[in-house]
């Protein structure tokens, strides 16, 4: 649910990065943070455990620029990927405007991907959202690793609705901005329709 402020001429939107544990959601945000000009970003907040696993969420505010005199801001959130943090994941999905599903391309993580994607659908439904109606993109991360599935197989399993999808290697930034731009664009197009 975007927030339009006519008084300060701002529009704020919320993007959530979803996916199984250790798929690279936080790494996506860290790369965006590193590569964004200081005046366009706020502080990145990570509520993580001592072993740097996301405990509640990561948060990164980004200012993209102006459209028709309105400052456009995106708030990027990640969810904790580990299965037992489901209650926290539900909370973070509240008020979401767009979703990025980050998949782990490794063969052995396929089951975790499928489980996480099912979990995303269920949790969105609980909040009254339908994934097929939300701005939504998929990222196949860790393309640099040896034991990965082919893009065709990943697509068949994880992207049956054929939303925009991207190959990525978030540690070096490949595909990170392409993914973000794509979901941001879908959100703005959605807003344009006046939803």
């Amino acid at each position, binding site marked *: 649910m975007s927030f339009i402020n006519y008084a300060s001429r701002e529009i704020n939107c919320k993007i959530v990065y979803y996916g199984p544990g250790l798929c690279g959601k936080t790494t996506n945000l860290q790369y965006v943070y590193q590569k964004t000009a200081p005046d366009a970003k706020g502080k990145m907040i990570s509520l993580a455990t001592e072993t740097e696993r996301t405990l509640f*969420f990561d948060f990164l505010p980004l200012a993209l620029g102006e459209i028709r005199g309105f400052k456009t801001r995106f*708030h990027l959130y990640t969810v904790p990927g580990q299965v037992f943090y489901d209650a926290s994941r539900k909370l973070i999905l509240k008020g979401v405007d767009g979703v990025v599903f980050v998949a782990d391309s490794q063969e052995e993580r396929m089951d975790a991907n499928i489980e996480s994607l099912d979990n995303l659908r269920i949790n969105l439904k609980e909040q009254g959202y339908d994934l097929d109606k939300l701005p939504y993109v998929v990222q196949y991360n860790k393309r640099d690793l040896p034991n990965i599935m082919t893009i065709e197989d990943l697509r068949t399993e994880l992207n049956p609705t054929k939303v925009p999808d991207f190959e990525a290697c978030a540690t070096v930034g490949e595909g990170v901005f392409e993914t973000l731009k794509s979901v941001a664009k879908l959100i*703005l197009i959605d807003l344009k329709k006046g939803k």
Partner: protein
Amino acid sequence: MSTQQMVMYDEEFKEINEVIERLLKEANAKVIFLVDKNGQLISGVGDTERFDTTSLASLTAGNIAATGGLAKLIGEKEFSILFHEGEKDNLHISIVGGRVILVVLFDSRSSLGLVRLRVKKSSEELSSIFDKLMRKAEDKERRGVSDFPFAEITDDDIDNLFS
């Protein structure tokens, strides 16, 4: 979409700021923020320069969401007031009108009792302003009036944002 979009207009923005400015003085507070339950900052008064307001808004909303989850687990609807006590500064966080969060930061020059008392009064005023805002948005929607700035954006406008 399941929830209605939050829209803020100049008139109500002014009214809201008047209420929280007054609360700032009456409660002897240092800073006051109003935050949307989704973590978007609506407004802030007082010594706001000293704080990272965007992060504060996001963490406050996360905090309210987490305690709301706890409330549901024990069969409560929500915990409408949270109080965090620090060595010097304290935070009084409350839910206004079921949808926005009022954050009052104060130190030893004020007291929890005073803040609670003043917040209660201001909450009612804020609540009615937000009700008015909701009605206004609903009314506009019903009449099909749209002053939405994005209705006329072009694909080029969107592309330019990323160039």
